[in-house]
């Protein structure tokens, strides 16, 4: 039972992060290599709002989430918008530069020390009992948040007006633009939502076990989950995260803990050999990559 809970928690972490990679790629074909850094920035923003709204945890959390949304919007407006029409590689390299900038800024503003947003907010993290297994409160919140995010995105993309526009822009931007869809607005929305979901992952992980500047590396570890599922499929990201997390947790327990570091990439290589476009990805998307 504990192993099952461990798999669900790890899968939720990877899925929540992978969701951001998929959102941007699906809409704009850009691989956002600063996603891990944006996730970290979201968590550090919580640290800032925690001191700003001392004693009001809900307000601090809400403000951090709102700020993350704004950060995503600003990244698009002031940086990625300029890349529209340029080579995809140029846009990807821009995200690399953005990542370096964020890493430097975070150390300058908050120092390199380990931080504890939960302590700053004064919120506890008790261990909850589920059958004969245990899960921390913030891990449980992360699992539920992940479910809510994917459920919400499913409804939004399938039935929402802007969701349908996002899908249209992703499938054929030229045609979408000719039909009157404002591509810049759609891309800005995708960047905002992607940064928001990444920030949620960063915030909840930081509330559970603290915050360091190494968070972007975890962002990269979630990348194989997105690729395994198919880089243009949200359902794929969910399934990919579950596969990678299950392989990782089971190998730690039954074989060797050291394998956990390479497992996501082993699963990815296996998938690239068998089905290079991922479980739910489309062959056409791979050709474009």
């Amino acid at each position, binding site marked *: 039972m*504990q*192993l099952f809970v*461990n798999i669900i*928690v*790890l899968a939720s*972490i*990877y899925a929540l992060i992978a969701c951001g990679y998929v959102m941007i790629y699906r809409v704009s074909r850009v691989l956002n290599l600063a996603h891990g850094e944006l996730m970290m920035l979201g968590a550090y923003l919580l640290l800032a709002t925690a001191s700003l709204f001392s004693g009001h945890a809900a307000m601090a959390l809400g403000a951090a989430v709102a700020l993350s949304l704004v950060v995503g919007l600003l990244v698009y407006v002031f940086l990625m918008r300029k890349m529209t029409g340029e080579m995809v590689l140029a846009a990807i390299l821009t995200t690399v530069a953005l990542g370096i900038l964020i*890493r*430097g800024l975070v*150390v300058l503003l908050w*120092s*390199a*020390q*380990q931080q*504890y947003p939960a*302590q700053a907010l004064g919120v506890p993290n008790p*261990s909850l009992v589920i059958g004969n297994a*245990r*899960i*921390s409160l913030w*891990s449980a919140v992360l699992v539920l948040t992940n479910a809510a995010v994917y459920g919400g995105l499913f409804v939004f993309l399938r039935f929402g007006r802007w969701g349908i526009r996002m899908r249209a822009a992703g499938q054929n931007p030229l045609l979408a633009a000719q039909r009157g869809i404002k591509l810049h607005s759609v891309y800005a929305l995708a960047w905002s939502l992607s940064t928001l979901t990444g920030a949620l992952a960063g915030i909840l*992980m930081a509330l559970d*076990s*603290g915050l*360091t*500047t*190494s*968070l972007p*590396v*975890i962002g990269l*570890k*979630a990348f194989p989950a997105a690729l395994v599922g198919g880089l243009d499929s949200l359902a794929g990201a969910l399934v990919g995260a579950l596969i990678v997390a299950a392989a*990782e*947790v089971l190998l*730690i*327990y039954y074989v060797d*803990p*050291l394998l*956990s*570091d390479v497992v996501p990439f082993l699963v990815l290589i296996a998938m690239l050999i068998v089905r290079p476009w991922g479980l739910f990805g489309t062959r056409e998307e791979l050709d474009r990559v």
Partner: protein
Amino acid sequence: MLKRTLLGAIAVCTVAVPAIAQDAYVVGLTGALTGPPSSTYAPAVDALRIYIDRVNAGGGVNGKKIQLILEDDGAQPSKAAANTKKLITQDNAVLVINASLSSTYAPMIAETKAAGVPLLFASGVCPQSVYPPADPLQFCTTGYASHFDSQATLDFVKATAKGPVKIGFAAMAIPLSRGEMDYAQDLSKTMGMTPVDEQVIPPPTADYTPFATKLKDTGPNWVYSWAPWVTQVRTLEALRKLDWQDDYIAWGHLEAESELARLKDGKFFVVNANALFQEGLPIQKEIEDAAKKAGSKYPAQTMTEGWIGGMAIEAALKGAGWPADAAKVRAAMENLKIDTKGLRGGPIEWNKDNHFRTRLYYRVYKWDGGKIARVQDWKTYDVK
């Protein structure tokens, strides 16, 4: 007119800067000021900088200022090598300091050896090459020492445990930490303990619970971790989330003091080579005041290692006299006694064969009823 004045000023500065540099002891430092492991190194570097600034404000050493040049290597070996080369060839440093991850040691050692410049490890774990018989160019002030730390830790566990010890180990997946935990496992067997499991945890890890689950299920009544702080403390917290309530002992890094207070865990022990600030020593008050005055963003409790590094630099330059070159500084370091004023259990003494210290001192602390308590006073180990 303005253009001419500016050009003149630039010309004066171009001539003046090397003159100032030549009139000061040039000490170069490359450290992990940014990057994932920087939380361990950046506070030490800041403390060292504050110490040197204080020395300079007080008139310097032998009437000369110390020019401390800081370079960031982000814990990357290639960057550390490039920084070292620059510090030696461009800045003419008479002493190079390492404040970075152990993976930067080899390239820095190669560069300093080629130039004959002494290398001081002032923040990362001391390499074996400073133990007797020491490499002529390498020196170390850092508190932690492989093998000795595990010996001291397991001695404490043996003395404290009330029954048979089933011990688990948690390492970070880096060579030094894994090597130390392997050594500790072997040592524990010779001391009559039963090693049950060793978890080697990659840095960084999204969730420590899967590792803790495996560790817990092997049934240890003690767990020992000698790894960067993040691995030590997150493994402990994951074990506690799984309702494992036995004893956990770890190395007391810079963060130990604030973390003991945060966790308030009566069964969490930290083994320290440095005195914690709760001792209230006059030197600790001095560090607190200096950190506050300098506006450091790091707490004073995290500054002991850097402060001791600064003490060593000051003592070495004092011994080298003026004018100093790398050879004179190295010669001075080979015969040095640094009074740590209570920050350690005794002085740091270097001689021709031993660039580590002749005697090690360990204290053990834990959280006890609302405050940090010392549960074992300085215990000494001779280094031969």
